[in-house]
């Protein structure tokens, strides 16, 4: 077993696995194309729940990294806040996971939204530093021009065949 931010395997080898939520049932209004839907937590949660963990063959929902009640959406003010919870407090993948969530939302949400992706308070040793990093649009922009990093992100965002 290799560890310490190991290149050969995940740090948290036996993470707690959670049951994914039921598929969302579409209401009649939602199916009616004439009605403009407002974005809500559930919709944003659906965007991020299937993101793959960089190390485990599991989704962020299965690892409980993203939870619907840790998402705030204010459609009128164009604000989205996603708080995520790394599986372990020193998880070295925390920044990468945050970046994956951020990129997923950048690609999925209309441009009018201001998105904040942060660590759920108290769940990571480097919370402040990770949050600052994720909030820095210039660093995020530069990171996404790094093809190796982008490959990893795209793998996280690829839809898993189940």
């Amino acid at each position: 077993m290799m560890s310490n931010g190991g290149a050969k395997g995940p740090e948290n080898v036996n993470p707690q696995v959670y049951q994914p939520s039921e598929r969302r049932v579409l209401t009649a209004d939602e199916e009616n194309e004439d009605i403009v839907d407002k974005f809500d937590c559930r919709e944003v949660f659906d965007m991020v729940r299937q993101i793959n963990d960089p190390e485990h063959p599991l989704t962020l929902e299965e690892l409980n990294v993203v939870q619907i009640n840790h998402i705030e959406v204010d459609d009128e003010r164009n604000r989205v806040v996603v708080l995520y919870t790394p599986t372990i407090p020193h998880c070295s993948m925390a920044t990468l996971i945050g970046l994956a969530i951020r990129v997923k939302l950048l690609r999925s949400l209309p441009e009018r939204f201001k998105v904040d992706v942060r660590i759920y308070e108290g769940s990571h040793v480097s919370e402040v530093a990770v949050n600052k990093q994720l909030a820095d649009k210039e660093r995020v922009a530069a990171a996404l021009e790094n093809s190796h990093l982008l490959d990893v992100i795209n793998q996280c965002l690829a839809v898993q065949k189940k």
Partner: protein
Amino acid sequence: MSSLKLLQDLVAHDDRVWCVKWNPTGTLLASCGSDKKIVLWGEEEGKWVAKVHLTEAHERTIRAVAWSPTGTYLASCSFDKTICIWKRDDTGVFGAIATLEGHENEVKCVAWSVSGEYLASCSRDKTVWIWSCEYDDEYDCLSVLHSHSQDVKKICWSPVEDVLVSCSYDNTVKCFKDDGDDWTCTDTLTGHESTVWAVAFDGTGKRLVTCSDDRTVKIWQRFNALDNSASQKPGWHCVCTLSGYHDRAIFDVDWSAIHGAIVSTGADDCIRIFEENLTAQDPLREPEFFAAASMPRAHSQDVNAVSWNPVRGHLLASCSDDGLVKIWTYARPE
């Protein structure tokens, strides 16, 4: 009451626009961005049009551009770690004449000293570099400054002397000067609670304005030993903090040398203008600034930079994630 009015939308970029800069005579506006392209805009029959597209010099996002004091040279810096120097020939055509390498990561800003003698650059690699600009278009590295502990976001030179100021993700602002053999950090300005995104001098070089991820704009003033101010020790001191105006990160500020108005902008898509209250001027009291004008949805996304025209003081340029460059006219109170 002052007012800010949109003069024109400038469309030419295909992606986020990171930086806008007027040339020293105020006749050309340079813009650059994630589409790896620099556009030079000029006025034709009262309309601003894209005159030149400078491409193929950088492999990644062009983060910033800077004009030399004579307007003959333009420097661009990129996430590809390089700086490119462009020179205008006699026919007015710009060509790339040099590529400066050395930074280990993204170069985030470039700036020419007022004498034209030096070029400064700063980077994600936490360093500030000072380059000498020789008559034969050779650029040598004069200094590599490791004073910041995090990436350096922006740099600017004093308009009156060879003093460089930088601001950083480490929440500080630093001043640098040549001590005869090497450049050294002479002052560190602390007070911001998060990344300091931008810094600009006023026309006299005695004041600075900074803006930050902490959503405040701060005005700093340099006190000399000779200043008859008993309250302040010599050095830079924060004399005014403007908070409560922007509700997200503030990415850029500029201070007009012509009329003294400060413009700020950021992630709240809004452009704001502040003026100093000069009526109650008492040298012993701290200066007062007030919000003179604002444009709430100036762009449809984050506004990344603003720049006052250095000659036609009422003209203001801005650029945004929405891919647009905009020119605004600012009318001051009588």
